[in-house]
């Protein structure tokens, strides 16, 4: 399907050949942004934000916990989005992006569960309670693991791409369930403290710290996913001529043997 060239378009980065150098240029920037925002966010969270009136110092774990939980759910939606794009538009890069994102999403799931357990012990008196939101978060982790296991088990890349995309879309039905589970089963976990429709029930510095950390998580995810997708592109496109050219160039830049 070749169309007349209408000049530079964002869509030309859908071609792995164009996306590979772009990812290489963008990733260090996002990594830098993530590092700076993490330092600022942790400084705000641990030194500037006031001590919580009821929970004491323990609450400070939210500066890692909440951004990780947000990110774990958001990454799944992005994965489902790329999967849908891949299935509809038949673009190889979309599947690669969703597979590059999955390990980071799973990592954020583990971080959210881990920090939640550390917070739950002093606050609720237990590392783990069978509350709806905790359970859904654990299920989200299983969805990630299922996706990763399925795409890694299938050897034929074309089938792996499509099968993973389908299971990601099927699992995406579960992500809204996670979010609304607090309202469905009215249980132990506190309701969301941050909402767009009413004033936040927390100090401005706490909110600022959390948002900065959320953006840090965002930038980190972008950087890591871009870095992860680059070797995947090379491996998948290894029969293409440009891959040979890229590898030769990079070997020369490092001054090594070709």
């Amino acid at each position, binding site marked *: 399907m070749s169309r007349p060239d209408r000049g530079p378009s964002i869509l030309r980065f859908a071609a792995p050949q164009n996306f590979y150098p772009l990812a290489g240029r963008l990733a260090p920037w996002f990594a830098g942004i993530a590092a700076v925002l993490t330092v600022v966010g942790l400084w705000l969270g641990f030194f500037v934000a006031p001590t919580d009136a009821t929970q004491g110092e323990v609450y400070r774990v939210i500066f890692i916990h909440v951004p990780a939980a947000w990110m774990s759910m958001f990454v799944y939606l992005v994965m489902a989005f790329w999967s849908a794009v891949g299935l509809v538009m038949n673009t190889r890069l979309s599947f690669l992006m969703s597979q590059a994102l999955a390990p980071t999403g799973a990592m954020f799931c583990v971080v959210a569960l881990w920090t939640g357990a550390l917070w739950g012990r002093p606050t609720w008196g237990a590392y783990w309670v069978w509350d709806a939101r905790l359970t859904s978060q654990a299920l989200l982790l299983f969805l990630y693991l299922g996706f990763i296991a399925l795409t890694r088990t299938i050897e034929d890349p*074309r*089938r792996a791409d499509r099968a993973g995309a389908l299971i990601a879309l*099927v699992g995406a039905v579960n992500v809204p369930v996670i979010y609304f589970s607090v309202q469905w089963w009215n249980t132990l976990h506190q309701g969301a403290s941050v909402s767009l429709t009413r004033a936040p029930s927390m100090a401005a510095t706490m909110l600022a710290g959390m948002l900065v950390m959320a953006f840090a998580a965002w930038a980190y995810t972008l950087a890591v996913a871009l870095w992860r997708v680059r070797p995947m592109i090379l491996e998948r496109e290894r029969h293409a001529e440009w891959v040979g050219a890229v590898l030769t160039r990079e070997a020369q830049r490092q001054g090594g043997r070709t």
Partner: protein
Amino acid sequence: MLNTFVAVLRRDLLLAWRGRADVLVTLAFFVIVVCLFPFGVGAEPNLLRAIAPGVLWVAALLACLLSLHRLFAQDHVDGTLEQLLLSSEPAVLWVMAKVLAFWLSTGLPVVAVAPVLGLLLDLEQGAYPVLVISLALGTPILALLGAVGAALTLGLRGGGMLLALLVLPLFVPVLIFGAGAVEAELSGTGATAHLLLLGGGLAGALALAPWACAAALRVSTE
């Protein structure tokens, strides 16, 4: 169109009938899993009565999970599946027929046996109708969701464990509302809400899962 549906349904039911042993193995598995619980948690009647709804539901779910691989495996091996996919009939139609035949041959016997196992666990009398209705509404959802997983893992090494990892998280809402229905009936709040949610889930799964399953079969066989 209806002819295709009926033909595939009749064929799969006939195959299930000829291979009755498979169905009986599933049922035996269901019974044995339920019987393991008293050994594990102790034979205290009050305790068994309290955990009965959950145990029956989990056992039914596992029985369904372990029989899922049969859904497409045989047809995949002997090439029937490819012929069906090549045919001009809409894939959604015969996928639905296959899932219905699968449910009739494995889900329905489990639903029928569950009340007897309820007796073993001393489930209270009033809960039996709700147990049967919740299983009758819930096991078709399990079959429909499981069919998608079975189609995706078709012919893979280690497919069984992978299938479990893929579909068990999706089964959880069904388990919550299914076992919840029986417990709500026992606690006196009434099971209507849970059963309505299960019915809604069944309608949703009926509308969406056959399409996902047909797409998955295409992915797995091309």
